[in-house]
């Protein structure tokens, strides 16, 4: 069984060298100590209550040995840890910057060409990337196991991650600083694309192709995909369970009661307004019992996608 994730960045092999090195040291030490514990128990088992034992209190040679060897090993491990850390924290000159904003419980990414994505980070392969990260609320932490990178994100200062992806593919992104109810659903994906695919994604042609293929799938199914990929899943359940936001199950057509005491039937326009202006009156209204925490999806979802989500909600009876 594999005990390490796939190596997909220039930093990963270095980390794995340390993990292997310390594992080997640990296994040898454990086997040695475990063996001696058992061996001594067997060999020097008490034979009678009057066993004679020597009064050994110290042994300069042994004590020097087991001081010096661990010291040397510690120095070696430190140096390995330092060298690779130094590489990781040094930003390459040609690095492309991407701005990252973390918010309970969504990642959003702003690219230099004006594009913006939610929970899905797109990067070209073999291109040094520098993430410039901040949080809108509590602490979060950006962690991609395949890249072996992790950095806390906070509200009062920018933090940074450097990485260069080495393999095309889709990798998991986790939040690793506890941030409340939906902490374990604050997930994302990192898409590492070939230079050509990235270029087409960047100029929007990939989007158009995706839209074209999206046109071929039923809206409710597209809505289901968007439910996960756009982060709705973090706060809205589809099985009736209470979350940070109201469940989507049985939502459509139901009467909603708001914090200001007014009521409204949840129809298409209500849902669309709630997606685009979730907390901003007059369109945005907060259902009684919930907080005004949802970010606006204006500019992140187009009309056909919003329609798809509405169609999806309609199927959740």
């Amino acid at each position, binding site marked *: *069984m594999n*005990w390490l*994730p796939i190596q997909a960045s220039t930093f990963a092999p270095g*980390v794995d060298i*340390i*993990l292997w090195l*310390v594992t080997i040291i*640990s296994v040898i*030490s*454990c086997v040695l*100590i*475990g063996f001696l*514990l058992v061996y*001594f*128990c067997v060999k*020097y*088992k*008490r034979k009678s209550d009057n*066993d*004679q*034992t*020597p*009064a*050994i*209190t*110290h042994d*300069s040679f*042994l*004590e020097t040995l*087991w*001081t010096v060897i661990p010291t040397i090993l*510690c*120095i070696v*491990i*430190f140096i*390995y*840890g*330092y060298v690779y*850390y130094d590489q990781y924290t040094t930003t390459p000159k040609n690095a492309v910057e991407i701005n990252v904003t973390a918010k309970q419980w969504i990642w959003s990414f702003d690219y230099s060409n004006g594009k913006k994505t939610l929970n899905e980070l797109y990067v070209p392969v073999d291109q040094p990337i520098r993430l410039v990260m901040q949080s809108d*609320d*509590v*602490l979060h*932490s950006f962690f991609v*196991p*395949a890249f072996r990178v*992790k950095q806390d994100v*906070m*509200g*009062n200062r920018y933090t940074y991650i450097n990485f260069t992806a080495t393999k095309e593919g889709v990798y*998991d992104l*986790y*939040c*690793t600083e*506890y941030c*409340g109810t939906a*902490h*374990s*659903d604050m997930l994302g994906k990192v898409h590492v694309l070939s230079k050509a695919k990235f270029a087409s994604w960047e100029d929007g042609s990939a989007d158009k192709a995706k839209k074209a293929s999206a046109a071929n799938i039923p809206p409710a199914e597209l809505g289901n995909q968007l439910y996960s990929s756009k982060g709705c899943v973090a706060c809205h359940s589809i099985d009736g*369970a209470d*979350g940070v936001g109201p469940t989507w199950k049985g939502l459509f057509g139901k009467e909603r009661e708001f914090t200001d005491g007014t009521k409204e039937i949840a129809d298409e326009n209500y849902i669309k307004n709630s997606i685009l202006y979730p907390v901003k009156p007059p369109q945005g209204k907060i259902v009684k019992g919930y907080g005004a925490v949802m970010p606006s999806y204006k500019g992140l979802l187009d009309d056909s996608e919003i329609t798809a989500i509405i169609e999806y909600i309609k199927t959740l009876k």
Partner: protein
Amino acid sequence: MSEVQEKNYLDNGEGFASWFFTVDHKRIGVMYLWAIGVFFIIAAIASFLVRFEHLTPGQTIVSADTYNVLFTLHGSMMVFLFIVPGVAASFGNFLIPLMIGAKDVIFPKLNLYSFWLYLFGAAVFMIALAAPADTGWTFYTPYSIETGANVILITFGIFILGFSSILTGINFIVTMHKLRAPGMTWDRLPLFCWAAYATSLLQVLATPVVGITLLLLIGERYFGLGFFDPARGGDPVMFQHFFWFYSHPAVYIMILPAMGIISEIMPVFSRKPIFGYKAIAYASLAIALISFLVWGHHMFVSGQSKLVNIIFSVITYAVAVPTAIKVFNWLWTMYKGSIELSTAMLYSLGFIFLFTIGGLTGLFLGALAADVHLHDTYFVVAHMHYVMIGGTVFGFFAALHFWYPKMWGRMFDEFKAKIAFVLIFIGFNVVFFPQFILGTLGMPRRYFNYAPEFQSLHVLSTYGTWIIGVGFILMLWTLMRPLPGKAPGNPYKSVSLEWSMESPPGTFNFDEIPTITEPVYNYGTKVEEES
């Protein structure tokens, strides 16, 4: 004098008041033992629920919010109500005067007051459970400022518990300076006392910092002062510095007394002097002092500067060496000994092996580049539990069995206790070893939900809790049902002072203050053949 000694400390006075208002260090130690035992069981039940929840991804039995409360309850109760005050206050109280040849601690009333403070702090902590915190035991800001849970009460409870620790620490330090029997020189002081001394130093010096930090947190929540919340111009990382400046030394508050216990038990069941007495004694002090300078290794990815990270990494490795020395010293105490595998000895051997794994996995986390990957994953959870359960709790259980005859004046069923040990040892490894692999694979900690590929390891880990749970119950069952008949004063033929009187001891411990003429752990009759 002898009339006073006719009754042992357990029989001398009956009823609630005779315990609640006692100034006898042994009774106070026993009361601590009961109290921490209750909290240990509550916190353990919370952890069993946490593990049960992980049988499937998503919801198994509780909601995400309840899960967050459960792991917070487990962590904060284990740390602040059980493990920090635990071994030091219970066995420290019971044993230190017996070991140094004193009739009591130097400030018996202060000792009782410390216990009351402990109860009061624990009561406040329990009241706070009406709206239980969901912050994790670390209370990181700004989440702990924004959450609707009852953070103020729970931290205020911990603040009070801190005073209990400080006063107990002062009491132990002064007792060891002032009340050692004639001839009980520092180089004859039992190693449990050395460990308790180092622990007390940490409690006196480090606990005020967490007290101040929690006060600042209360001020921030209650009065809106902006220390840690970025929205008010504060710095959340500063909270982490304050918190770990206490909580790293606290790790050694938790482990040092257990190390002391192992140092007491190994010579008795090996019939050999402890190997490297001075090395262990000084290592205790060295660990205590260096532990103040390594807090930043909890914060390698917190956003603190690169240079600071490098410095903390270096100092962290400096603390690894004295710890390694101790392990080898315990191991070599067995060499050419006459070894009896009693239950207490089995727990001690379990301690040495599991603590070694706990220590070695710390080497992964001290290496900067590796920590970037492993930080806040299950690897840390596993590492921490190998040290805290494999280390402290195994040491604590060793002590429960080892001093059982002295404390209760009865013997227990060794056979059943050994079966319980085997279950606990196996169960523990089944729970926590898979978590190392979960961590290296990248499974973050404090996750209610998880990806399906992690399920088999999670399920295995949960099965382990059922094995260890049965072990706990069997151990408790065995210890609650002592064998008939009175325990001898010295069932193990120990040469240590605490075994020199009847079991259980009289209220004033010694008829006459003894004069110490021999080195500590003076075992071994054969002439020493090597230098």
